[in-house]
């Protein structure tokens, strides 16, 4: 009996640590995308996490694991579409983001629909759903149905245990704004299609929530040139 308790305790402990790491990574991700988050929110220590998000019996309460973040002024400026005669006062493409950890044993179409509806009803421009179980194919099809109102992204907790952008082999990625993209294409006299490409499902592109058509600047270290910048178009 004691052995069983011990095993259960260990499993619970492992679960808490894993979720804490995913919680940290998702905060870093939201921060890196340009949303406003405080330093103490991003770098939450394990003890504090345990104190805040566990029930009295020491088990994790996933219902509490949710937060929203507002885009910073800089980010809003970056993703502002250009003013046109028809649309003299454009609204920024980015809005408040909603992040939630799935509190369910399965992620099917129903759960995805619930999440999408919640994000759309509360006017969140994008929603990030973290799941610890696999996503069914019909759930993925649901995402496109909400594209008119909100952008839904989903991540597996397993993929967010470490922050991949902190790895030494991952160079710095910077998303270019519309103006910067136009300037780049003009400077090198390129068409969009002549740029090298990066897939939407690329882990780093997913981390930054890139959309098709955006350009990312990748800054590498170079032995000969010091720094070397290359550009990739998201497809």
């Amino acid at each position, binding site marked *: 009996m004691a052995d069983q308790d011990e095993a259960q305790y260990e499993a619970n402990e492992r679960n808490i640590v894993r979720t804490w790491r995913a919680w940290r990574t998702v905060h870093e991700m939201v921060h890196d995308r340009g949303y406003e988050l405080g330093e103490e929110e991003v770098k939450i220590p394990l003890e504090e996490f345990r104190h805040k998000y566990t029930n009295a019996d020491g088990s994790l309460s996933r219902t509490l694991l949710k937060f929203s973040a507002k885009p910073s002024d800089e980010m809003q400026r970056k993703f502002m579409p250009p003013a046109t005669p028809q649309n003299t006062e454009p609204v920024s493409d980015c809005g408040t983001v909603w992040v939630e950890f799935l509190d369910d*044993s*399965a*992620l*099917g*179409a*129903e759960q995805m*629909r619930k999440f999408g509806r919640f994000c759309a009803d509360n006017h969140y421009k994008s929603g990030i759903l973290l799941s610890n*179980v*696999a996503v*069914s*194919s*019909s759930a993925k*099809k*649901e995402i496109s*149905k909400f594209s008119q109102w909100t952008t839904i992204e989903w991540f597996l907790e397993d993929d967010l245990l470490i922050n991949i952008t902190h790895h030494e082999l991952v160079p710095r990625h910077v998303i270019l704004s519309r103006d910067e993209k136009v300037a780049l294409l003009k400077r090198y006299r390129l068409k969009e299609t002549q740029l090298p490409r990066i897939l939407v499902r690329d882990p780093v592109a997913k981390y930054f929530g890139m959309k098709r058509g955006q350009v990312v600047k990748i800054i590498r270290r170079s032995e000969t040139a010091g720094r070397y910048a290359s550009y990739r178009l998201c497809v």
Partner: protein
Amino acid sequence: MATQSNNPLKGILKKPIPPAADPKVREVAVQHANIIQQRKELEDTITDYIIELSKLPLDRSSPYTSSSPSPTDAATFKSHVRLFQPSDYEDLISERNANGLCGYTLCPKPRMRVAQRGEYKLINYGRKDFSIVPKKEIERWCGAACARRAMWIKVQLNDTSAWERAGIDSIEIGLYEEPKKTEEDEAARRLTRDMAGLQVEAERKAAKDAQELALERGDTDEGAKRKVDVRIQENSVKGVAEEPSLGKDDDGHLVTEGYKTKFDSQKNTASKNTTGI
């Protein structure tokens, strides 16, 4: 450079044609938009059905099993799955599996879990029907019987889009183990079904024939609505009709458009003869 700034640049391209204000164009656009909207709605209903069917059977404690499901559940399943494509059905199975249920919609049992690790599993070891099966494939069902029942449904599904089949009532999905009916009952049922099928088939054929005939005669709807007014005017004929003749010469029949082909057959054969011998 100074002169350039005075004269604004002028494009050499043609001015874009303003969209036609023809009400007909708008009508066509609206019609197509409506069709697309209908398709979207149908796709939404299919997702609704997937969600609904992934929760069946509603009453798990009842004596009903997958081989003899409750009539209401079976009816719901049959009426909903009618619109599915095989890919939608696969989605339904994976959705049920995600909920921890057996892939067959009418089965109340949870899906099988294989404790061993490894990609593959040996089944029926030491028997004639021994085979090596991916573990994933086994874990989709509660047993081989349910897999068979589910596949029985799948092979009846059609690959054509749902909106093409939505209106056809004669599509009916049968379960693997329908309760055994008496021979006569079965025969009568089959007869009515065949009759319905025949009638539909005959109607379709008649419509198709009529359409083809109309096309052949040229009295189609498009002909009536033709934009250019076609008016046939007869040429007035003067003089008496004359039968064609070959002309004065004897070899008029050799002339084509006033030219007579010439070749010296004698010479050709002669030269052939000299070289040949």
